[in-house]
């Protein structure tokens, strides 16, 4: 079970206020599908606008990235730069 | 609008060109003589990217009318290296990583050359004030100043041993 942390308000608007929840997933692709199923709109939001930190490492569009059994997954906005 | 014919010496070579009365030396260097090493960063004499040496004086070529150079000697970045050998300033800019994007570099090199021609042993402060008309947005000037002072030292050494 990966622990998903959703501190940003636009995520919480779709989780019914939940700041964290658990998902059984082995890859990011898996994770997004399950999140979308559970919180309609959130999976797509993450896919299009957000980055995912897996155990402290920020990834963007890394659908194939593996999740360990107790991975911590943090949802955060995508990052650009100058 | 009739064009004017002007004859000058650019980087040691005689050149003749036609220009509109409103065209600047920078326009002519870049568009007529295809010497695009002199850059236009502002067109108002505030950035120094178009710096050339005209009859021994450092000028912004964007603030000189093309017709004004009749009979003048103009030195541009394209003439700074002697054949295939870089000028010590060019070499020191490379050695010290004194350029990033490189857009201000031709103007800074010409300004630095004029500095060392006028003052072979500038202090850091003198170099900074002399080069204040040459904006660089990448480097923070630190490495440029070090390169100029190092080139000055080398040129002084060369002069001694010559």
């Amino acid at each position: 079970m990966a622990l998903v942390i959703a501190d940003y308000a636009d995520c919480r608007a779709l989780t019914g206020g939940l700041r964290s929840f658990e998902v059984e997933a082995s890859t990011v692709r898996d994770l997004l599908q399950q999140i979308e199923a559970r919180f309609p709109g959130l999976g797509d939001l993450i896919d299009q606008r957000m980055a995912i930190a897996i155990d402290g490492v920020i990834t963007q569009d890394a659908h194939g990235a593996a999740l360990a059994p107790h991975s911590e997954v943090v949802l955060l906005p995508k990052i650009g730069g100058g | 609008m009739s064009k004017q014919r002007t004859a000058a010496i650019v980087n040691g070579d005689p050149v003749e060109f036609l220009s509109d009365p409103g065209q600047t030396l920078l326009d002519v260097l870049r568009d007529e003589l295809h010497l695009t090493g002199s850059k236009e960063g502002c067109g108002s004499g505030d950035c120094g990217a178009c710096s050339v040496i005209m009859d021994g004086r450092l000028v912004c070529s964007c603030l000189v009318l093309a017709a004004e150079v009749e009979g003048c000697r103009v030195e541009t970045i394209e003439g700074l290296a002697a054949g295939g050998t870089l000028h010590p300033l060019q070499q020191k800019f490379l050695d010290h990583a004194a350029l990033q994007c490189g857009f201000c570099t031709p103007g800074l090199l010409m300004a630095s050359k004029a500095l060392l021609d006028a003052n072979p042993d500038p202090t850091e402060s003198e170099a900074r004030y002399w080069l204040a008309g040459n904006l660089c947005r990448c480097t923070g000037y630190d490495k440029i100043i070090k390169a100029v002072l190092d080139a000055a030292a080398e040129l002084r050494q060369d002069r001694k041993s010559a």
Partner: protein
Amino acid sequence: MNKPVKPEDTGPILKVVGTRPIRPDGVEKVTGRAAYGADLHLPGMLIAKVKRSPHAHARIVSIDTRKALALPGVKAVMTSADMPDLAAEHYEAGESASNLRDLSANVMARGKVLYHGHAVAAVAATSNAIADQALDLIDIVYEVLPHVIDVEEAMAPDAPILHDQMFTAGLGDTPTKASNIATKHRLDRGDLAAGFAAADVIVETRYSSAAVHQGYIEPHACVASYAADGQTQVWSSSQGHFVIRGLCAKLLKMRFSDVRVIPAEIGGGFGGKTTVYLEPLALVLSQKSGHPVKMVMTREEVFRATGPTSASVVTVKMGAKSDGTITAAQIDLKFQAGAFAGSPVGAAVMTSLACYDVANFEITGWDVVTNSPKVAAYRAPGAPNAALGVECAVDELAEKLGMDPMAIREKNAVRNGVRAPYGPVYKNIGYVETLEAIKSHPHMAIPLGPNQGRGIAAGFWFNIGGESTVNVSINEDGTAIVSTGSPDIGGSRASMAMMAAEVLGIGVDQVRPIVADTASIGFSTVTGGSRTTFATGMAVVQAAEKLVTDLKRRAAETWGVDQDQVVWQDGAAHCLQADKAPKGALTLAALAGSAGKTGGPIATVVALNAQGAGPGFGVHVCDVEVDPETGHVTVLRYTAAQDVGKAIHPAYVEGQIQGGVAQGIGWALNEEYVFSTGGVMENAGFLDYRVPVASDLPMIDAVMVEVPNPAHPYGAKGVGEVPIVPPLAALAIAVRHATGARMHDLPLSPSKIRAAIDAKAG
């Protein structure tokens, strides 16, 4: 705690990485040969210019281009009617998603002009002078509307509205009334009220910054050539030619394969050259005229219609216990987005507390449209504005607590294992080491004289990875070509060549790095976000490693041994079974010379989406002297320490730090957009938009702290953006300590400082 790691501790001894070779594109640049955007000349080429709005906000009633088109020498005239009317669609490009409808309306106004300088029409003609005359012949009728530029005024309920269909997102419920607030961002954790209740002291403060421009010295420039069969070539100076391609194709509804973008050398970008302004217009004009078209902005146009970054107002309420522990922080960030939504306030929300381990916080950000040029990315977008507020608030807190400014930062510093305020748990960060590097630096021991002050501030930037493609090929003589799709804005060709040379075991002078055009290499996103040395560098290393594997296979075949009997060292294959290789090692040159006999050309491509960019932290200390009678600030000395992971080419890492500091000093002291009451920028030139000149600055001591990033083969972290984050606060704090007056509004111009000194005295 990590210790700064010396190169010899990171594994194999590095021969190239960490040295300071001369950059491969250097000679071209010191001899004036390097070709930038405005340097290309094609036969039959036209010059195109843009007609711009004289109003800050107006409805376009009519545009009549007939007289301009009739002028001899004019070959084409265009308006937004010549571009597809696009739906609102988010397109992932450059620094962040672009709304294509907004972008289209920004490059050429549609229906309304939203800022003074907004493009309304463009002409292509046979000369500059004719193009100028043609612009004067375009008749435009405007209905002038009230305008608003100040971010707080734009948020007021009765403010003039820029976009009738803008309803604030992020409030929970979508409002029914349109406003200039595009989005409200919110990030919070813990119990704010309890946090403040636990505090012994609380500060409440407010800091503002004016809009500032990236100020690259090269104005935007491009050449577009549209052939009758629809195939086009665009030469453009940008931070990402693939993004230029994508945006042109999307805005003009063209096939990507029909748009070939060739990267010119780029004369500085700092984020500002990650989008399009001229290229789509040049393409339309080239298509309409049947000629190649060159467009070059004037400096004035650069100021009026590109860049800048947001003006901002940051309020901070922060509480701490008497031992310095920060218990709660409430931060509100209002950012000016310019004419279209999309300020960097989201990143400001995320970075504002990134250096602090705070249990209870609430951070709110407001993205607000105004009648000023649409903001573009600028070096760590959003972070400097946020750091100005937070670092100054921390200094105020330290002062109230009677605590040393370094000690309060150490007390609350984020460390490995601490959850970052923006979400993830920190790993492999070097903030504490960076604080230590400043604390122990000789700078800190230099005594200050009268009217002198010292300011300390910290800063953070995420850094990013992202998509890159790299080709590495070995020439027949054993030299190598490294092609990337990443424009080189500050020396990245040098670091690419170095990493390839390191892996291949050859000299860096044997590697020629180039930036390939969009038809010659796979997709690579912009050079921005401090990603190129990290992400494109990772692809270079992987490509070179693939080649080494291939070279070992070729050598094994040649010798008739198993591949595990071959080692690659110093640019040659060595056989562990000496008897099988009587002629000794097979050099890269030998293997390359006989490549046809071992399978053909030696070349490979790596395309990746690099993950795991390590965040960067910087700590700066700055000493100033303030003339108490004039308010003039002299920067006496400046030291900037930064965790760079591993410096691939230390001289260019120092250069990034020094350059970022210089931009930050300019932002703090003198740079600002000054608008007239009519909404016209009054200082659209380098005379009155005052970027620092050489005599304004001291030497800038760049201290590189190396806490390696395990995600990168050599430990590199991005370095380009962090250094612009701390200077705004460092300067404001230094001026505070030099004068006793707390400065709340940037820039810290002499008149403001004198006024603050007078107010304090009187």
